[in-house]
């Protein structure tokens, strides 16, 4: 007999969350930001660079260089970028408008809504949210994370003229995980602080301009509120001329690059099955390995007569129709004879 059935109690299910760094080579904090001159072509309205700038961990062309995230700028009216066709009935149709509407649709699923950031405190509209005309976007490359980004691990530093370094995080720890649920999954606020803990007592980071942004860990992107951020970093004040390539996403790139610190973890839910493989003393003590016998089929060594000794290297898992479904290898051969039993726990991840 070469196969042994598993009993019901031999199979156990388990699910675990595994957290890893989002960036290449499991780098915890990304301290470099590079662009590709071929991709970041900002001169025409239809080039990919007019919509987004891909950011690499290393200089492009060097070994291990890979896209980590992309930066974009969106404007409700299409300002700040070249129109696709600058003519009657097509004014304002530009990359910045496409970007704004694209993310708006992802988050709200409704073309009538716009991004709002808590909260507006002026005398006219106190208690409501602030609605800027434009947004900055940081979109993490899909291949960099598993199931989702992990809330509470975001630490992004922006730098430039003004107040110097601005340390951004999400408020998931402060909000004890409570999130607004949108079409793009959970939504947390981007606030000043670190590792998910907000500095201060309010999500209103700038009076009358709201929070610094919104974080969508399930969809892998961050929406930044230019009106709030540019209070702290005047280099990030968007230029919003009509039909002009103001390249505002380049400003965001410079701020991220000068900040030299971007930490973000990703999360994966792994379902595992454990198969407790019990090898009893009287089982599996012979082998069909040709080197175990001589040319006549006799045991190769006389000392093994009545005391055969074999070595387990491989465990095969089969279904009812005898198909080999999964296979596991030991790191070293495991001796087996009539005086030994073994318990091998085989883990199969899905």
């Amino acid at each position, binding site marked *: 007999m070469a196969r042994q059935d598993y009993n019901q109690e031999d199979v156990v299910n388990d699910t675990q969350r595994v957290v890893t760094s989002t960036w290449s080579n499991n780098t915890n904090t990304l301290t470099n930001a590079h662009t590709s001159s071929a991709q970041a072509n900002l001169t025409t309205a239809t080039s990919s660079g007019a919509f987004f700038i891909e950011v690499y961990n290393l200089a492009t062309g060097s070994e291990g260089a890979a896209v980590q995230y992309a930066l974009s700028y969106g404007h409700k009216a299409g300002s700040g970028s070249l129109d696709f066709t600058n003519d009657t009935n097509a004014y304002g149709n530009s990359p910045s408008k496409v970007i704004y509407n694209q993310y708006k649709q992802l988050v709200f699923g409704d073309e009538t809504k716009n991004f709002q950031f808590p909260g507006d405190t002026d005398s006219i509209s106190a208690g409501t949210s602030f609605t800027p005309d434009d947004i900055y976007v940081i979109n993490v490359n899909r291949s960099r994370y598993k199931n989702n980004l992990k809330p509470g691990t975001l630490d992004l530093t922006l730098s430039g003229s003004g107040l110097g370094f601005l340390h951004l995080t999400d408020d998931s720890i402060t909000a004890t995980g409570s999130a607004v649920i949108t079409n793009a999954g959970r939504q947390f606020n981007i606030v000043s602080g670190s590792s998910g803990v907000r500095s201060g007592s309010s999500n209103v980071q700038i009076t009358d301009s709201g929070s610094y942004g919104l974080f969508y860990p399930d969809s892998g992107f961050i929406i930044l509120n230019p009106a709030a951020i540019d209070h702290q970093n005047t280099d990030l004040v968007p230029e919003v001329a009509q039909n002009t390539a103001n390249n505002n996403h380049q400003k965001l790139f410079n701020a991220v690059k000068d900040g030299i610190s971007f930490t973000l973890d990703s999360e994966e839910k792994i379902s595992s099955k454990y198969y407790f493989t019990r090898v009893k003393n009287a089982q599996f003590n012979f082998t069909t390995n040709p080197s175990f016998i001589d040319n006549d089929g006799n045991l190769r060594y006389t000392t093994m*007569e009545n005391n055969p000794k074999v070595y387990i290297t491989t465990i095969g898992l089969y279904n009812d129709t005898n198909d080999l479904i999964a296979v596991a290898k030991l790191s070293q051969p495991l001796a087996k004879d009539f005086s030994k039993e073994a318990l091998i726990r085989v883990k199969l991840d899905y």
Partner: protein
Amino acid sequence: MGYLDNSSITVDAILTKKGRELLSRNDGSFNITSFALADDEIDYSLFNENHPNGSQYAGEAIENMPLLEAFPDENNIMKHKLISLNQNITRIPIITISNQAPILQKGGVDSITPQTSNYNGINTLSEPSGYLFTVKDRRLFSSFTATGQGSAASGTTQPIASTVAVSETVIGNSLSFTAISTDSLFGTNNQIITTITIEGLDTGARATIPVTINKIAGSTTQFETGKTAVEVQ
């Protein structure tokens, strides 16, 4: 007094190509119910029963061997299975096949009836539970049928429409198979091969034979192990 070792070994399994195929079918066929053990990579000539340090060290060379990682080709792993036999057995069961290397023309029919030697002291017999017949590339046959173990256990599988080689297993005491009669899988080749692995369900004894299919009628060129041949991927 020391502590007893209550640990178990934990190893990570990977899905085979067949496992991934069954998982994608989502028809309940991906359901692990049994296990087998193998000693692939072990060369028992390294076992030194005359070790100068005594018999306890006879397996020294084998036990210190670093093993390779698992790979997903179900046809080339688990080749040498560990089997359960009575303790006083001195001869290991082996499979004998008279038709060692079948050669078929397009549309040709052939069969295999394996026998097992050295099983329970009987020189030659057909194993009571039958044999597993696994073809490495099912596309090469218009029929692949095992008989002798009743309709429930035996199998006749349908030809597979696939762009890649897919293995298939049937159970029985003998196997008959018919080569494809079309040219599509030959391409520019006049001859293609695959393998059929036969495994005794009672003993675990295993044998693999090549099967050659000729595009041109009348050719009798036989494939031999170690020779170059075209295996459709």
